[in-house]
């Protein structure tokens, strides 16, 4: 089971909206239970990789497979299913402004039609785990940046999503807060779920169960 392939990109070519090439013959494979740390300069395409994985962007050449399913523009249903298995933090993964913290965290469970009892229980778990109990009924615009990130963590974990994409959640943090968030990242990596950590700087410490890649000239090395 542990050899199950979660993400597989083969010979992916991608252009930006302005037509500049971003990915050139990109290959990437992620096995269930392991994580990937991807570092790359500003504009190297880290956020675009995230967009590629959730089916917000499509390669003009090459194949993108998640959970054994090919993600293509025409396959709306597949994309929807794949997205429900991905938890996103940072980058393009923002909160829904009109939802409270609790509603935001619960939304992935609403989508799959989880039972009310389970929902309540998991929500409480998440609020406790990420120390958000006091903020449960606030809306995102009344949260600090760190709190928003924590809610995203909770939302990405609430439905046991098998893949988590973390797009630079450590940017612009002071040391203490940095450590706090970093702990959560390590926790995810140890939980048996897979994660993709995107970051401009190399991370200060090792993350268990993970492989490091660098995004250079549109390819992963």
């Amino acid at each position, binding site marked *: 089971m542990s050899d199950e392939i979660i993400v597989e990109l083969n010979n992916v070519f991608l252009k930006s909206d302005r037509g500049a090439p971003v990915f050139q013959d990109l290959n990437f494979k992620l096995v269930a239970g392991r994580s990937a740390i991807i570092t790359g300069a500003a504009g190297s395409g880290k956020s675009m990789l995230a967009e590629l994985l959730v089916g917000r962007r499509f390669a003009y050449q090459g194949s993108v497979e998640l959970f054994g399913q090919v993600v293509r523009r025409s396959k709306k249903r597949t994309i*929807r*299913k794949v*997205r429900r298995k991905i938890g996103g933090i940072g980058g393009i993964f923002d909160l*829904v402004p*009109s939802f409270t913290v609790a509603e935001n965290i619960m939304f*992935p469970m609403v*989508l799959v*039609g989880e039972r009310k009892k389970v*929902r309540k229980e998991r929500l409480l778990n998440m609020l406790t785990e990420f120390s958000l109990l006091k903020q449960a009924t606030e809306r995102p615009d009344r949260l600090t940046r760190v709190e928003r990130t924590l809610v995203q963590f909770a939302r990405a974990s609430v439905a046991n999503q098998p893949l988590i994409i973390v797009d630079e959640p450590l940017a612009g943090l002071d040391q203490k807060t940095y450590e706090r968030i970093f702990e959560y990242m390590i926790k995810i990596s140890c939980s048996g779920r897979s994660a993709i950590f995107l970051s401009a700087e190399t991370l200060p410490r090792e993350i268990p169960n993970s492989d490091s890649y660098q995004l250079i000239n549109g390819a992963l090395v």
Partner: protein
Amino acid sequence: MIRINHILKELFRNIFRNPGTAFGALLSLTLLFLLFDIFWVAAGTSEQFYDDLLYDLQMEVFIAEDAEEISLSQTKEVLLRIEGIRSVTYVSKDVARQQLIDLVGVDLLVGYDSLNPLPRSWQLTFASEYQTRERLDAIEREINTFDDVSHVQYSRNWLEKAERTKSMILDIGMVLGLLILLTALFNSANNIRLMARARAVGFYQMRLIGAGKLFLALPFMLEGFLMSGISAAAGWGLLYYWKGKIEFTWLEIIFPAVDDIILFCLATAVLGVISGYFGIRRLLKV
């Protein structure tokens, strides 16, 4: 189940977060539908009005003074056999006198008994398919050839005007009706877009997490349904209320059948669903 809950919650959120917009939408849709209803009623009323008038449309065939009674009954037979003539009523000199009395209010011919100057005549009425100028003209021409007949008379000009007015009201009604429905569609789509656009960021995020288009669109489509349905009903409600207050003696106001009104309200509600979808569609392309 939980998804239905979510959809209803979103619906109420939309409406209660934008009470001004919701109210404005309701008001403007109601007035648009009122305009539509007025023209519908006007068309029905004018149709009925002219139909009533036409039903009584008579052609008077005046009988020559020297025509013999025996010959007349033959001619009457011939008249009855003409296609399109519904009835032939003989008006004797005496009946004509009585009709005049009814008209004027006094018997003007007191002491005139031997010398009634009024002509005899037949009053013809027609089957409704024949109440057009063309056909009546043809009949008039035919009758004019008869020996016993001195002259024939019917309100030709009046019929022409009636025909023209009827078709004109129908034309305007159609054009206006289409315009209004189009506008209502636009209008409610715009209002829904207005409510939805403030939440575009949220849609983007919900889509990213795996929410389907329909799932996100449903509250807005439901809203369109309610808005249009309610305002269509309100439009008719207003008209019925006013109908109770106004009294036109010279015109009987004809409302469409209740079934038709209910159908209309349902149809506009469906239109509201469509407009809700169009209002939200572009915002879901994320």
